[in-house]
């Protein structure tokens, strides 16, 4: 074991990096760090626009609402760039921002305005005619998932489409892991039941 401790990368990095900024005033150094992190958030947003939009569509079932959700998420993320913890997953952070905007602002506003929600089947379709293979089963799976209640639909999407762990899903939705599990179990029971009724193998 002692062999493995012969060198400390953390120490050597600290020694090498510390002399980089001494000539710059403290304030200038901080400003530079803030700018760099905002640029990081911006490029992270750019990379994740389509995934965020898709999540917005899954939540709202409406394209224009998905557009709004992404825009609000971009604004909020850039405003709060300093709250992002470097080294953690930016996409998870963005998803949680989008989810809280949906939950706290957009959804409640729409419900209050009495607009309700359009039929899931209408909006969540796509022009997949050029891609037979995807087209064949995609419509069926989409339809089944979209028929689930929002709470179940959301965990199915985050866990099985985005491939997040239970812990990550719980973090984004701000709910206990046990709740993630029970929603997934209930969704699975529903999907399996629907599957057999539909005469799937």
């Amino acid at each position, binding site marked *: 074991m002692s062999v493995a401790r012969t060198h400390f990368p953390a120490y050597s990095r600290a020694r090498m990096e510390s002399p980089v900024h001494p000539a710059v005033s403290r304030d200038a150094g901080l400003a530079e760090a803030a700018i760099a992190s905002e640029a990081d958030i911006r490029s992270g947003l*750019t990379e994740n*626009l389509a995934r965020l939009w898709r999540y917005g569509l899954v939540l709202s079932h409406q394209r224009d609402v998905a557009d709004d959700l992404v825009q609000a998420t971009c604004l909020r993320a850039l405003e709060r760039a300093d709250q992002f913890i470097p080294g953690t997953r930016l996409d998870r952070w963005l998803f949680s921002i989008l989810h809280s905007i949906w939950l706290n602002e957009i959804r409640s506003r729409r419900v209050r305005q009495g607009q309700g929600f359009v039929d899931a089947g209408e909006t969540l379709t796509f022009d997949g005619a050029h891609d037979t293979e995807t087209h064949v089963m995609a419509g069926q799976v989409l339809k089944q998932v979209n028929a689930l209640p929002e709470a179940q639909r959301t965990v199915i999407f985050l866990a099985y489409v985005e491939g997040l762990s239970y812990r990550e899903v719980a973090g984004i939705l701000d709910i206990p892991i046990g709740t993630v599990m029970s929603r997934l179990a209930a969704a699975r029971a529903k999907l399996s039941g629907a599957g057999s009724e539909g005469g799937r193998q």
Partner: protein
Amino acid sequence: MNTKHTIPSDEDLTAFIDGELTAEEAARIEAIVNEDESTAERLEFLARASLPFKQAFAPLLAEAPRQKLETMLAAIPAEPSTKSNATAAFAGRRRFLGALAASLVAGIAIDRAVIGIGRSFSAKDENSEWRAVVADYISLYTPETLAGPVPERDVQAAQLAGLDEKLGLSLSPEAVSLPGIDFKRALMLQYDGKPLAQVAYLDPETGPMALCIVKSDAGRKAPDLESRKGLNVIYWSNETHAFMLIGRIPADRMKELGEDVRRRLSA
């Protein structure tokens, strides 16, 4: 969690299917499943909901109004007003191109949640799990999936070259050709974050077939036959990669084809 003899809840079984349990918890569930028929049935019932979610939702990524969203993002002013916008926009665009390329891969990513559960609950075995996922995926193929003309040799070579880099291979149309069976396309997929090469073929008699390759350091393994989802599979591995050939072609013929391809790939 439950004590040893209590029946696992749907939550326990779901976490088991999703690979979210610790090794001990998973072993406990597996033991109960092996002993208790009703638990085994419940597990299979819940596992039936392991649908190809990723593939189903992938087309929605392409539906996102990227240009509109990009423009919207670019229109948000930088927080401290001293920002060099030109640089940020340029970096943004380069990242955007990268993201586009990445999304092409993500768009055809295989759903790792799809576990072929069958009767053997060996979900922990990484080497068999990728084959279960491929079998699930290929079982959705129909001859129409692979309709269209057979690509020319240079097109085949170009498609294969695209796989070589990611997988550290050197595939030629000759090495992967199957006698009497049409080469249809070579695709880069992704399994559990790792590149997965798929060469798809169409057998005029039995329909779609595929040769799939992933990087694997599990070690050399002689060819073996198995059946998954009603498809026959011959699989083997060398020091660097794991291979599988899958299709509805009869087992004997599959064995011959697999061994033939294996010889040419290792030549």
